[in-house]
């Protein structure tokens, strides 16, 4: 099983959590990005994500590898949804395990920043008023993390 995955099915939160288990893992940090019911003051009905899966997975793996070289991690995992998502569904899941919590927190937050900047995934919002719009987004960052 790849440490970073892109899936068009519901993220299995419990299964991902189990993969963080490690006998030396004293601190586990999990981030879930969840579909909100509003965006910049407008009511959101649902989301659709597109992803360029092979490159998204490869970039995700590169990010996890870089995180492992920056912090002494026992586990670093991530998953990004594509397809149709309802309010409350998890769009992204990032999990880290380390002997001590500071490293697990720092790595988890950093991985998520990198995923947003570097993984080719696109969000389309369908608003309550019927409008359908691609999220403004940011230009894909290509340089390797230091």
């Amino acid at each position, binding site marked *: 099983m790849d440490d970073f995955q892109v899936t068009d099915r519901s993220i299995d939160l419990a299964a991902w959590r189990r993969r963080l288990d490690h006998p030396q893992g004293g601190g586990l940090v999990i981030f879930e990005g969840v579909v909100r019911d509003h965006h910049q003051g407008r009511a959101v009905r649902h989301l659709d994500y597109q992803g360029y899966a092979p490159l998204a997975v490869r970039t995700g793996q590169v990010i996890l590898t870089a995180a492992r070289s920056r912090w002494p991690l026992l586990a670093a995992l991530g998953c990004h949804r594509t397809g149709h998502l309802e309010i409350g569904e998890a*769009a992204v899941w990032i999990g880290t395990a380390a002997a001590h919590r500071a490293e697990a927190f720092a790595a988890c937050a950093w991985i998520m920043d990198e995923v947003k*900047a570097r993984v080719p995934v696109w969000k389309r919002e369908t608003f309550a008023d019927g409008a359908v719009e691609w999220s403004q987004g940011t230009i894909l960052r290509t340089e390797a993390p230091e």
Partner: protein
Amino acid sequence: MPEVTVLYFAHLRDQRGTDSECVATTATTARDLYCELVQRHGLTLPERTLIVAINEAMVRWDSPIADGDTVVFLPPVSGG
């Protein structure tokens, strides 16, 4: 004439009306190919907002394209 596969995502997929196509092209670089597609299909995203990938690796705009390549122009991303 060399043929490449072009994949479309997000705004570009909407503008082109398909997620992928085979393109016979005289373009020799990724930049030339995007110019051709802009002219043919009225794509509106400026080059400076896009990143280009050939065969699942991000590359420079002046990278050469070859017969059989898969080329993707990646719009601004909004994951997470």
